[in-house]
């Protein structure tokens, strides 16, 4: 769906993108992560045909995005980081403008506008001037515009940044709904919690290059810490865990009041056996968790 090969982009003497390579497959949600100023929006703008680039190749649906003169013909939905609309228009008028640009009939426009406004929960505010909208409402209108032409590919640049928790939840729900419809979504954000919730794969952009590209599940596996945190129903002591030190895969045991932390080698292979051994001790267990790195921790590890 999207293939970016050795993409380079300079601003003045500063090279923002230094040979970016990305492949986004059809129907997947790809999370594009990077520090502020890493070049995420630049990459998005290039894909949307809004800015040019110096080197490399960008293919969208097999079509070469060569430069801004060959702009895409509305077959890609794009939501900029801070979408700007005509403030004196209302949402209905704006969506009608977008529909008219595509050359649709009045009936089609009217039906689609109603459907889009309903999807992004803007029906009640549909006749209000956009100038009076909150940032969250503008973001939702931006999503409605991006999906208006029912594109197969959506480029969403920081769709949930600067939104309150409710607005963020709404946006993530909309993205999930679009994912269920089979849309391919290229999502840039620095809110990593959102990435964990909706993305299939993730790419980390650092110093103008992709430094890590992996599926979310594999990434979590790769960066998982092989530590079991166990909480017992009552105080425990080190003596009770002496027999757990015998297996060679147990590296370290830390006992503290009611909690025990056990470091092991290769949790996938040895995890089940360890849990059995812990159960055999005969002390009621309240909880047992395999410690996980959050995507945020993984991101910080990778970029540092």
């Amino acid at each position: 769906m999207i293939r970016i090969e050795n993409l380079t982009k300079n601003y003045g003497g500063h090279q923002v993108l230094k040979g970016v390579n990305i492949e986004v497959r059809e129907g997947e949600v790809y999370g594009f992560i990077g520090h502020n100023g890493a070049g995420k929006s630049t990459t998005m703008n290039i894909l949307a045909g809004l800015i040019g680039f110096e080197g490399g190749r960008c293919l969208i649906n097999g079509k070469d995005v060569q430069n801004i003169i060959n702009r895409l013909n509305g077959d890609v939905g794009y939501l900029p980081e801070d979408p700007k609309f005509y403030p004196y228009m209302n949402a209905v008028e704006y969506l009608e403008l977008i529909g008219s640009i595509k050359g649709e009939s009045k009936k089609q426009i009217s039906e689609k506008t109603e459907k889009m406004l309903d999807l992004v929960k803007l029906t009640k505010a549909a006749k209000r001037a956009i100038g009076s909208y909150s940032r969250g409402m503008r973001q939702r209108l931006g999503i409605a515009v991006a999906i208006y032409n029912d594109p197969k590919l959506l480029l969403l640049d920081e769709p949930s940044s600067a939104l309150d928790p409710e607005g963020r939840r709404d946006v993530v729900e909309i993205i999930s709904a679009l994912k269920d419809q089979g849309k391919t979504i290229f999502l840039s954000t620095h809110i990593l919690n959102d990435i964990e919730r909706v993305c299939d794969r993730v790419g980390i952009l650092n110093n103008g290059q992709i430094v890590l590209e992996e599926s979310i599940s594999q990434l979590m596996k790769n960066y998982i810490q092989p530590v079991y945190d166990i909480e017992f129903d009552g105080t425990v002591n080190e003596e009770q865990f002496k027999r757990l030190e015998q297996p060679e895969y147990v590296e370290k045991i830390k006992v503290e009041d009611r909690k025990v932390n056990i470091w092991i080698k290769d949790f996938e292979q040895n995890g089940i056996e360890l849990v059995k051994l812990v159960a055999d001790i005969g002390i009621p267990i309240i909880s047992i968790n395999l410690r996980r790195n959050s995507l945020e921790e993984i991101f910080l590890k990778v970029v540092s």
Partner: protein
Amino acid sequence: MNAVNTYKAYVKKEIIEGMRARKFLVLAIGVLFFAFSDPIMLKLLPEILKSQMQGADFSMLIELSQKAALESYTKNLFQLSTLVIVLSLMGIISKERDDKTLTVPVSMGSSIKGVVLAKLSVYGTFILLINVLGMSIAYYYSGIIFGFTHESFVAALATGAVYGLFFVFVLSFLSFCSSFMKKSFLAATITLMLVYLMPLAGYFEAIEKYLPVNLFSEVNLSVILPKSMIASLLCTIFLTVIFSALTVFKLERVEFV
């Protein structure tokens, strides 16, 4: 096809903007105010001067006629209406670039050609119409005050259209400047400098008859389209087309972010 769709969509958008942002109102006032005020001011001028100059009678020194009133209107159109038109439309393209309001439509496949032509069509047509209307008001109003002399009403209407054409040329140059800079005021300043300094180029006889500003001096209210005006009229239309095309050419290469 895309350019046609974009053109139609943006014509509607510009009409909405013109009404809600009061641009049409400002433009109408900027042109029509003088159509109403000039004849009456000319009529009252001797009286005003008389009260200021201790009873001296200036009525013999000032020509009080329909022709003089229309000439006064023409002068004000060039000097003041230009200012109003340029300042009220200075953001026609640069504001869209500065506010990034074209980013979403362009990413949705809007044609730049359609956008630019829609803007020029809507405001160009409106300017043409209010100039024709302004001239007809000035003609009738001054005729009522001073009496209808030898001027022809049809010629007055044609003159209004010619003035309108001059302002469409100004609009195309303003758009051209806007395509290079995001700051509206800078584009307006350059446009105003061009318009107000253009009469100086008239000192060179070889080019005088080709200058758009020559339309104002060649106007003859008794003749519908004087022959002496043809060269500057054609040149004005040619330059309008050239500046419009250059605006499209430049904007198609602009990064709308």
